[in-house]
Structure formats: structure tokens, C-alpha cells
């Protein structure tokens, strides 16, 4: 637990609003998931839908959508990629995104640009920890496990 009870992993990569985390896998593959901050502000997630494996998604087009309460919206995507795998456990039990946001990965993505180049647009390590904590404080986000 890191800030306001929100879990953080310095080895992962994050967008500048800390909505998603990315993990580098062998090959040009990234795993994407929701951060603890995202699941906390979304509330209990009732539905998740991921585009089919094989689907190409340009940067800006979401790889997945979620629904909590009556809110629906995208899990944002910032890289030009093709979905290569979907976490079936999360599809079947969306609440895993609330219970274990860093364990409950959503999809694996094949990235259509050099991985180092893509990851340079994200934050990681201690810089990410500082930003993550700042967002939790600024938006008064307290993480709990749904």
C-alpha cells in the first residue's frame, strides 16, 4: 500500500493520469491493466468488454470498456497495437479489477512501434510513484477493495 491505501508498482509503466498500467513482456508485447486509482474512482465494476484478439487498435481507440453502477467508458489506450490475448478470468468476473487491479490484467498487446519508443511516452519508477501519489492526493482518492 502506498498512498491513501492505493497500491503502486514502480516496475510498471503508467500514463500521465495513472489510469492504466503497462508491463513489458518478451517480444513487442505489453500487458495492460487498470490502476488501483482507476478502480477506486470507478466503483464496483460490473461489466468489462475487451476487443477480440486480432483486432488492431490505434492510439486513442480503447482496447476495452468497463461499466460500474451506471457509468460506462473506455479503458484508454495510448499505443498503436493489436490485441493478442484477453484475460478470460476478468471477462467472467469483472470484480477482479476491483479486488486485485495489478493482478487482474485486461489484455496483452502487440505494439506496432519499437517498444522502447512507445514506453518513452509513459512514466515509471520513482517519478511515477511521485505522480501517482500526487494524483491520489489531488483528487482525494482512497483505495478500497471491492
Amino acid at each position, binding site marked *: 500500500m502506498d498512498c491513501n491505501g492505493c497500491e503502486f508498482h514502480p516496475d510498471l509503466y503508467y500514463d500521465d*493520469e495513472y*489510469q492504466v498500467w503497462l508491463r513489458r513482456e518478451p517480444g513487442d508485447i505489453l500487458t495492460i491493466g487498470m490502476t488501483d486509482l482507476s478502480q477506486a*474512482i*470507478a*466503483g464496483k465494476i*460490473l*461489466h468489462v*468488454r475487451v476487443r477480440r484478439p486480432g483486432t488492431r487498435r490505434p492510439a486513442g481507440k480503447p482496447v476495452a*470498456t468497463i*461499466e*460500474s*453502477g*451506471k*457509468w*460506462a*467508458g*473506455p479503458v*484508454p489506450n495510448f499505443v498503436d497495437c493489436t490485441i493478442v490475448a484477453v484475460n*478470460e*478470468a476478468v471477462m*467472467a*468476473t469483472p*470484480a477482479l479489477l476491483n479486488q486485485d487491479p495489478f493482478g487482474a490484467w485486461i489484455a496483452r498487446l502487440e505494439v506496432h512501434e519499437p517498444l522502447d519508443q512507445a514506453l518513452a511516452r509513459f512514466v515509471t519508477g520513482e517519478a511515477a510513484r511521485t505522480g501517482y501519489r500526487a494524483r491520489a492526493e489531488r*483528487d*482525494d*482518492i482512497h483505495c478500497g477493495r471491492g
Partner: protein
Amino acid sequence: MSEKISLRVLDTGLRRAAENMALNRTLLECHQAGDSPHTLRFLRFEPCALVGFHQNVEQELRVDHCRTEGIDIQRRITGGGAIYFDPGQIGWELYLDRRFLGTADMGEIARRICEAAADGIRRLGVDARYRPRNDIEVDGRKISGTGGAFDGNSIMYQGTLLIDFDVERMLRVLRIPAEKLSDKAIASARERVTNLRELLGEPPPLARVQSALAEAFAEAFQVDLVPEDDLNPREQTHFAQALVEIDSEDWVYQRHRPAGGMPLLEAVHRCPGGLMRAGVMLDEARDIIRQVWITGDFFMNPRRMLVDLEASLKETPVAELETNIHRFFDAYRVEMLMLSREDFLQVLRKALDSRDPASTRAGTHAAG
């Protein structure tokens, strides 16, 4: 005094569902891109049935009935369940920044907006109140349903307001088993829904409804209202593109959920306080209780506790039914005569136990 933030007010008039859905996407995406200001939109619909973002049309609607009756079918970009819309209702929508209301918590944002909307409806002379999570009601009867969508830091939150409403017409659009359309079932649905015409004796003029809502939002959020006649040029361009995608079978009939049964399970429970009947609509593929209905001749005060309990049990995983019932009664002040929370739990369990064993296995399997 610091200068107030502006809230643009748009009235896009009576439109086809596809146009209204395309406008939802347009205004949300343009807001996210910085091309749209904070906006309050009023909208009305030609007769249509709208499924929630993650629903399957065939599972929720009587498609043949809609086609015969000329009722458009569309998919919302917001979550929640299927609804029927016609010119007897008015829609209101807010497009804001996630931090506009000083919180990023989605539940809190919904509550703040719904409370402001309820204040607006009260200005028309009815005692409207917010009912968690997403309804506005008058004396326990729903008058406005709401839901939201987000995209990055932009949010869109929308609600319906029933000015005049035909419950039977709604029930015939939704996929509810034929035997549930009995006079009694229709009467029961009517008890749970109300509208301004019924409450006020006549429908108030649309302009008055709009100004009451707009003024309530302006006061609650401390903003200046800026009425405008039309979309800005960037929004116009975006709208034309969004309409092509949304006014299509690909958008409307996309399948989001594994196909599964949605049985209506029923049970009767005799307890010292009286006879209790319950209906449970179960999403078998996900093992989630979509909705429950409870009726009976027992005594409680306030009587509206029943509808509050029903509202709190929407979308409850079967495994969490007991916890949710306890959580509800722990927080709710109600006086009951020879009746306990266990009775409610029992009647709902009994309904769930009436599941076809074969479909129970399939449901468990699909839920992983």
C-alpha cells in the same frame, strides 16, 4: 468575487434515437478534445427503445414488436438497463470535466448531479428526491432514471424526466415474458413509476421544465447559463462522422455479453407478518441478480422501504445477496411488524432456488 464558470445550454429538439446517441458521442469526445465547453443539453426522442452500452439487443427487447410499431432500436453510450423513450419524456445531459464537481469519485459525481436534478424537478411543484444509486423519485415512485459515460477526464451524465408516460407501452417493448404482462403486473409496474402529468394534473410546458432544471444546475454548480442555438463547427463535423457509425446495425446489434438465459424466478414466503411474494430477474451467464420485485400484505413504516430495498439490490452478484441485504438493513431505519430481514432473504433465496438445475450448472460454468 471570482468570475463564474459558464455552462452552455443547448436544446437539440425532437430527434431520432441514432441522432441523439451520435450527439452523445460527439459532445463527450469534443469535450475531451477541448472542442466543446461544459454543456447542458436538453433532448427529446421519436419513439425508441434504448439498450445500455453493454447489453445485447435480443436479450433485452422485443425486436419484432419494435419493428411493427415503428419504434427505433438504439444503443446508449451509458450503462444501465434498457428503456423506452417517446416524446412524452425529456432528456437532460451534462458534459463536464471529471473535477468540475470537486471530486473524481464517480458515485459522488452521480449523487451531486442527481440531487441538483431533483431540486430542479421540485421547482415544478413535486417532491422529487434522489434515490441511490441512479434514480430520482417522488414518494417512492421513479420519475427520472440516470446514467453516465466517461472518456478520459470528460464525463457525460444524463437523465430522463417522465412528463407523460405509458407504462404498458414500455413493458411491451422490453423482453418480459408474456404472462408478466397481466393487468396485475402492469398495475404493479405503474405503482413504481410516476410522471409529471399524473402528479400535477396536466403536463407542464417544456420550456418551464427546462428552465427549472437549468436553474437548479446553475445554482448547485455555481455557473452562469449561456444558451446557444446550435453545435459549433467542430462539433458539426464530428457529429456527421459519429452518426455514420452509430446509425448502423453494427453499432446497435454488437454483442457484449455471453448469451445466456434471463429467467424471472418467483417465490412466495409465508411469515408471521404476512405473505411475501418476490420476483427475481437473474442474469444466468454472470450469476448476477438484475432486479428484484417484492410485494406483500405485511406492515412496515415507511412503506417505501420495499422500493429502496429493490433499488439497492439491482445488479447484485448472487454470492453477495446476503451481504447486501444485511448492509441495507444495517443502514435503514424501518419499523416492521412481525417481519425481519431474514424473511426478505428467505423469499429471495427461495426464488433463486427455483432455478432450472441444468441452467444453474451452465451459469456457474460460464461465470468461471
